[in-house]
């Protein structure tokens, strides 16, 4: 049995954040009906990576990933009839997810301000860059600009890399995925509460606030005046000799902060003369640029003759936190990922059978699973809309 199989969700989203939110819920069995614009469908159908095939609407691996287990109906929300049909659909669903700009929902007759009186049982989730009614200087946003206004951009990479301009996060949709995850969490919490009182909720997810809250460990200390606020790029960091270093076949990451880790490290690099005079707790209380440089010099020397997997095994056996920096192909090939079946084969009518990333949680009773591949554009229009008109003819309301 799937945990969310009794819930119906209408997805108005046309971006990664909202589609990811819908996917997380659909993979737990919720019936997610995706509304797509006529002709070209969701804009994510036209973002890469692309597979082969001639149909421009059905080649996107991004869309295929984000829309597993969903149904697709085509509806023109810029036409009056489209908005009328939407109103009928709204009578039949438990949740609506949207990720258009603030104000868009009101334009299609679903104003968050009047939600409670008009549709008191509906859970309405709006994901926007800066929340409802943003100020003029925050009206237009992309993933990159949110990454930067949230503080993550300025502090990436961080201390020791001040010569590099502030970077982008990994991939293209980093903040979108974070916001989609947050939204899904609040939708489920709202459904939980709704079981007892049948009341819906408005959920206003600000991608910006989600990202700032992801740095709560440091931002809470900044705002409480407990940690210095500065214009230094290393201002988020813990400092020390740890970091990413080259080895024979790529890179490893090592973390070193405690006396135990220092003792193990000395052993690993053969206890050279210069380490003998250092206080055992220097990583916590005696960091100097010279000590850090010497530590890194010997580590790099040690790594030269080792590949990443062997280096990690050898170091971990001594109690040192050293791990490989995996490339995408190495993640896919990892025996651990294979054991946990993180990548699953999904067969799509156009893209064929491809390994998809699944979810990072295993559930003993209601595992997330991909039952159907992402829908072709409008695949379910006829069925969903005829059920709807049937319902109107026979006078059946909410089922």
């Amino acid at each position, binding site marked *: 049995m799937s945990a969310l199989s009794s819930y119906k969700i209408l997805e108005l989203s046309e971006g990664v954040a909202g589609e990811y939110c819908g996917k997380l819920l659909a993979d737990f069995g919720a019936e997610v009906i995706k509304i797509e614009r006529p002709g070209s469908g969701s804009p994510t159908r036209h973002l*890469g990576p692309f597979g082969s095939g001639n149909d421009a609407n059905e080649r996107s691996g*991004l869309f295929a990933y984000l829309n597993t287990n969903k149904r697709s109906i085509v509806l023109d929300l810029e036409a009056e009839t489209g908005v009328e049909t939407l109103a009928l659909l709204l009578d039949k669903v438990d949740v609506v997810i949207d990720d258009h700009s603030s104000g868009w929902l009101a334009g299609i007759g679903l104003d968050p301000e009047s*939600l409670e009186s008009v549709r008191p049982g509906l859970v309405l989730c709006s994901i926007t860059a800066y*929340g409802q009614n943003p*100020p003029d*200087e925050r*009206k*237009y946003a*992309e993933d990159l*600009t949110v990454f*930067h206004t949230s503080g993550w*951009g*300025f*502090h990436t*990479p961080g201390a020791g890399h001040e010569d590099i*301009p*502030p*970077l982008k*996060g*990994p*991939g*293209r949709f980093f903040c979108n995925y*974070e916001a989609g*995850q947050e*939204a*899904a*969490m*609040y939708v489920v919490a709202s459904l*939980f*509460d709704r079981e007892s009182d049948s009341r819906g909720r*408005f*959920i206003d997810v*600000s991608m910006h*606030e989600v990202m*700032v*809250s992801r740095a*709560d*460990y440091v*931002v809470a*200390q*900044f705002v*409480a005046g407990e940690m210095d606020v500065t214009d230094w790029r290393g*201002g*988020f*960091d813990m400092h020390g000799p740890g970091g990413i270093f080259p080895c024979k076949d790529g890179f490893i990451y090592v*973390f070193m902060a405690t006396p135990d880790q220092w003792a193990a490290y000395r052993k690993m690099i053969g206890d050279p003369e210069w380490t003998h005079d250092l206080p055992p707790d220097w990583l916590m209380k005696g960091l100097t640029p010279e000590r850090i440089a010497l530590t890194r010099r010997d580590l790099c020397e040690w790594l030269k003759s080792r590949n990443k997997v062997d280096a990690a095994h050898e170091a971990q056996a001594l109690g040192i936190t050293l*791990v490989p920096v995996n*490339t*995408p192909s190495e*993640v896919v090939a990892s025996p651990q990922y294979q*054991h*946990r079946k993180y*990548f699953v084969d999904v067969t799509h009518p156009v893209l064929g059978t*491809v390994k998809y*990333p699944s979810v*990072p949680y*295993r*559930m003993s*009773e*209601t595992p997330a699973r991909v039952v159907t591949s992402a829908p072709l554009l409008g695949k379910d229009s006829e069925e969903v809309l005829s059920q709807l008109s049937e319902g109107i003819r026979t006078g059946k309301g909410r089922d």
Partner: protein
Amino acid sequence: MAKLQRGGPLAGVRVVELSKIWAGPETGKHFAFMGAEVIKVETKGSLDFTRFDTLTGDINKARGFMSVNPQKLSAQIDIKQRAGVELVLDLLRHCDILVDNLRPGAMERLGLGWDVVRAVNPRIVQITMGMYGNDGPLASQTGYAPCFCAIGGLSSLVGSAGKPPTGMNMRYADSTYGTAAAFAGLVALLHARRTGVGQFVDVSAVECMTTMVADTMMDFTLNGIEHGCDGTRHAEMAPHSTYRCKDGDWISIAVSSDAAWEALADVIGQSGLSTDARFNTLTGRKANEVELDRIVSGWVATRAATDLVSELQARGIAAGKSCNSMDLIADPLLWERGFFPEAAQSDGASRPIVGPGAKISRAAEICDDAPWLGADTGYVLGDILGLSADAQAKLKADGITC
């Protein structure tokens, strides 16, 4: 009846947290912010090391700990002793969720494995968090946030194009991992409410990271393309980068359409730029991106960040300052939206804390700061477990509680 009545969607839900550092506490924090009663069970001999703050020297005022544990209760029960474990099991009969991020295998060794826990409460949801997840050939390995990013495939993607990876800022990972765990836990909680059946939820930190770059992974599984560091570049937008302003600040600009480019070219005002055929399509801008960035950089370098953001936004162009820590705590929008609610400890000392990433109707009131160690032991033993004053005194005398 919960000790704190704060409302919210999880009012009436009770959570026990056996978690340390950041990720596990983040999961509990989400529940607490939604109104659940979250009880941290802490053992004096093996405290969360974020309770040790070299600056304040006070376990009740430890800065890192307070950052991720607001709105929770604390009970001091020694789970290294069998009688302490028995108390926890008794407590679990009255709880809906158990969260732990102890070392792999530690819960089983303590006698708090899933088989034991479900036997005392078949409705409970047990969320276990581990770097590699709860099983598999590498499950015994442990690590910290930057390890999750390295293993999960994020770090190799962050850095200047063609250079060795630098990885994300080292603070990234725990809160994301904690959020994924909270989401999965809530799905299980909803299922338990509807069916009476609890479950075991096993969350992997490294898989959480991989999920944040899922489409990059798809490019490998679909097309065999191995992505590496790409600086600030984006396949479907140009310009798409960070640029240094005249005052030394940085701003980010992302141009997602030809219309936005036309607007930007117009603001830059360089003669012939808006009609330059090299730049009027995305394909052209991508092909000439080095030259494009040179032009934008040269122009941004003559301007101040704040003015520039307003000017670009007024023309419909996505732009934002690359914010440092001073900017973050002074951000007027964050204050206006109540993102930094005021929270008080039991001694009345209050301070602003970091609120949740979403605003919801009928939200829980957020007003309580992190608990003092063992502040709620009496509530747990007396009010929840119904132990007499004598029984409580004996537990204390035996060193099971403090």
